[in-house]
């Protein structure tokens, strides 16, 4: 009995002290996307909800991220956290920018009490 109680206390502590949010991401490379771009750091990535029309770019592919909060006690994922996750994914792909960024609405998901999606297109400037 005391073992079960100890386990419950440990589980509760883990739930309450775990990181606030975590994210998952995926990408769909453009069929004719150029390859071999060196990875960048997230702070080098430009991010916009609009398209970039005053500068030529090549699409590397579409990226999707989901930011989830760990417990019900954590604060909800925000657009800023989604932006960070999109930048990280784009940086891994060697992109210069993420265009046409759009967000889902925050709400309860299958794996979390609060999650928010974001999609965008990773591009490199010419």
């Amino acid at each position, binding site marked *: 009995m005391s073992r079960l109680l100890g386990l419950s206390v440990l589980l509760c502590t883990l739930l309450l002290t775990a990181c606030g949010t975590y994210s998952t991401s995926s990408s769909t490379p453009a069929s004719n996307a150029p390859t071999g771009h060196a990875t960048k750091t997230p702070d080098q990535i430009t991010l916009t909800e609009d398209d970039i*029309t005053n500068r030529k770019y090549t699409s590397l592919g579409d990226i999707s991220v989901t930011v989830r909060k760990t417990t019900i006690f954590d604060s909800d994922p925000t657009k800023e956290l989604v932006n960070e996750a999109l930048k990280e994914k784009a940086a891994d792909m060697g992109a210069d920018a993420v265009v046409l960024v759009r967000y889902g609405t925050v709400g309860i998901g299958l794996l979390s009490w609060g999650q*928010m999606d974001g*999609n965008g297109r990773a591009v490199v400037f010419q």
Partner: protein
Amino acid sequence: MSRRAVHLLQLIAMGWLCMALTACANSAPPVPVDTTGTNRETTSSLSDFSADDAAMNCSAITAEMKANADKIETDNAAIRSNRKNNEIAGYLGGLLILPYAATESNSAEKEDIKLLQSRQDVLRKLLAFKKCPA
């Protein structure tokens, strides 16, 4: 497992199902087909737009886009304002079911956002097609 325990588990499962159907997150809309990148596979043409849209000038397009963005923000604010209430009701509902009456799905706002975002994509494409200044 006793019959009572099975009933309790069934109630909890129903509660989770109700929660999934009410206060769930909406996915972000997909990114539109690339019509502006140098490696695009399709190019937009005037026939992609309705006659009314094709007649719009750059300032009318940007004005509508700004109005749509404001409406999306208003809808998102309405959804966010019900979040804490939904979470608490959902959490209690996992055990008691009845608190689900307190959840607010904001389905009208979510549907509105979906339509507005789709319209924004058309306007962005039109903006690029008409070579409006960025």
